[in-house]
């Protein structure tokens, strides 16, 4: 194993500070992400939860530098100590795949239907690692073994339509790992799969974390999935983070009314499902003040006037609870 110089003691991979993204709309810039601050370390699975349109996937795209044309990005995105936004095109291209890799929601759509599995597993390996065709094929077989796909040698010659969704997601994960990335962004990787298959994929991600020290950003709309998986969780609403903290505590005692509402909207163990009133807003539609205020059961007058910021317990950030709520704010504010 070649030793890479560790910049910070807990091998922090990713540190995003005050990230804001706006897209170009027909009537001027449209905010997509506002003041997003998050971090992830090697060997850590970090959950990102929120409804569709909350900016989860845009965070992933911003990290990969794959935002639509005309997107404006501000704030810093430090990956292994380097600011991604200062890299040139070649530099970003090198980080994609070899530094940060991505697994998509629907594996049947994320693999090219007309290219062989072998080609899709090795093409970026060869571009990033500079290995020969033979070495790449050998490594591809190892990767398939690692994601527990049998008959690896034959699989390389096959095409995506010959596999089931669960198998394809394993292959997609193998492909994401091919160029030895340090951080894996998994964008709802189990949403399109059968429940029984989901558990296998989650277990696979957990084992990759443990064995390879892979950092994982696990994006999901399902807080429950994160319970057993993510050490820390960020809850998104309307393009900003409304609550964060160690997953166990966050799920046990959610502070932000939105997090609470999300948990209550999951009917489990015969509990009555309580859907959240109103409909989710995206960052562009967010009202002044707290974006959740119109749907919030605990709303007060001040919520519609001033926007809460994410405040952390004890003024510390890492590993602490934090929530962006004027009513149920941080420690003792309730």
């Amino acid at each position, binding site marked *: 194993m070649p030793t890479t110089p560790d910049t910070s003691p807990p091998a922090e991979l990713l540190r995003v500070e005050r990230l804001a993204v706006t897209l170009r709309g027909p009537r001027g810039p449209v905010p997509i992400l506002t003041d997003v601050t998050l971090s992830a370390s090697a060997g850590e699975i970090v959950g990102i939860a929120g409804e569709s349109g909350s900016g989860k996937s845009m965070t992933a795209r911003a990290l*990969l530098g*794959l935002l639509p044309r005309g997107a404006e990005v501000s704030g810093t995105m430090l990956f292994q100590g380097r600011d991604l936004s200062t890299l040139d095109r070649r530099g970003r*291209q*090198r*980080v*994609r*795949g*070899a530094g940060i*890799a*991505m697994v*998509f*929601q*629907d594996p049947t*759509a*994320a*693999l*090219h*239907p*007309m*290219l*062989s599995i072998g080609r899709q597993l090795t*093409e*970026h390996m060869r*571009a*990033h690692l500079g290995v020969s065709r033979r070495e790449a094929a050998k490594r591809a077989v190892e990767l398939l073994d690692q994601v527990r796909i*049998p*008959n690896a040698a*034959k*699989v390389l*010659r*096959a*095409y995506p*339509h*010959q*596999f089931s969704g669960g*198998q394809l997601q394993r292959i*997609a994960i193998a*492909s*994401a790992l*091919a*160029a030895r990335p340090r951080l894996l962004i998994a964008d709802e990787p189990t949403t399109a799969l059968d429940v029984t298959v989901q558990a296998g994929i989650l277990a696979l991600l957990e084992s990759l974390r443990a064995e390879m020290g892979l950092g994982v950003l696990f994006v999901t709309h399902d807080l429950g999935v994160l319970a057993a998986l993510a050490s820390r969780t960020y809850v998104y609403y309307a393009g900003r983070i409304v609550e964060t903290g160690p997953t166990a505590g966050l799920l046990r005692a959610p502070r932000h009314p939105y997090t609470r509402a999300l948990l209550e909207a999951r009917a489990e163990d015969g509990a009555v499902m309580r859907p959240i009133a109103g409909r989710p807003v995206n960052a562009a539609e967010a009202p002044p003040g707290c974006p959740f205020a119109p749907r919030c059961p605990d709303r007060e007058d001040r919520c519609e006037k001033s926007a809460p910021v994410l405040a952390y317990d004890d003024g510390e950030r890492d590993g602490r609870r934090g929530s962006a709520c004027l009513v149920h704010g941080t420690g003792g504010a309730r």
Partner: protein
Amino acid sequence: MLLRSVLHRSVLHRSAVLRSALLRYVLRRLAIAAGLLLGSTLVGFALVQAVPGDPVAANLSDQALGDPAAVAAFRAKWGLDRPLPMQYLAYLGNLLQGDLGTSQQTGRPVLADLLDHVPATIELVLPAIVLSVVLGTAIGMYAALRQGRAGDQAVRVGALLGLSTPQFWLSVLALYLFFYVLGVSPNGGRLSPQFSPPPRVTGMYSLDALLAGQLDVAWDAVQHIALPVLVLSVVTTATLVRFVRSAILEVLRKDYIAAAYAKGLPARTVLLRHLLRAGLVQIITMTSLAFASMLAGTVLVESVFSWPGVGEYAYASASALDRPAILGVCLFVAAVYIVVNLAVDLLYGVADPRIRLT
């Protein structure tokens, strides 16, 4: 294990079994093709009969028309005095022996006429289709990648112009500009008068001249080809640009393209390997359709450029109601369509692993 059995079957398919299955497929398609050709002779024969006009009047001089004996002799010579079903059966009988009949105009066997005219047309259509596919794909991809921007707008306007320009007008305009005004192009025909056709191998002058080592003749032939090829390519290129643009736009939205970028592949690899490959099946389909319309276009372009190809032959035969010649052209066109369709279906199987020919 399901996976194993699926793989087993697929691997088998891609080797030995594939070849014999492919052969069976091609043979079956050829058998169907024979039926199609038979059908096209029937339709062609019926249509020729349905056209108002009398081949006797079209072929005999006024003086001969006044002479009942001459008219009767003409009708007897071409079998026009027999009932239609008998005429058709006789035609089929001759056809099976490779006899397409004799042209009333040229007095030569239709087959010999076709063998003279077909290579001339191929010499135009082949370069034109290659040029159209290359240009159409490149420009269409460029426009799709610049969707909504100035480059895209320019391409879309250009494609619309190209599509709506009548070919005969474009032919005349091109001749006027490049021959009359600029003087850089010859004035129609296949060769300049000082050259004689090269010894026949393929019937295509440019190729035959190269084979015979007559570089000056080959260059002269290419100069004669250039302008009609250009004119033929305009409409086809414009059609392909529009189709390729929309096909590529559709592919651009796919997750697997985002995934290819997310893997850190160079943009060139994503474009050529992932994007183009995904659009390939559609591009093949469009090309075959464009090929058909180009064949129709040769009729006008060949008459303007005095190009002795099938289009010109078809035009001349139709004007003279030369029934054997018209039927011969029909058969040729039908055969071209059948071959193109078969080639396209075979290419689908190569381009898309999900398509299996059975």
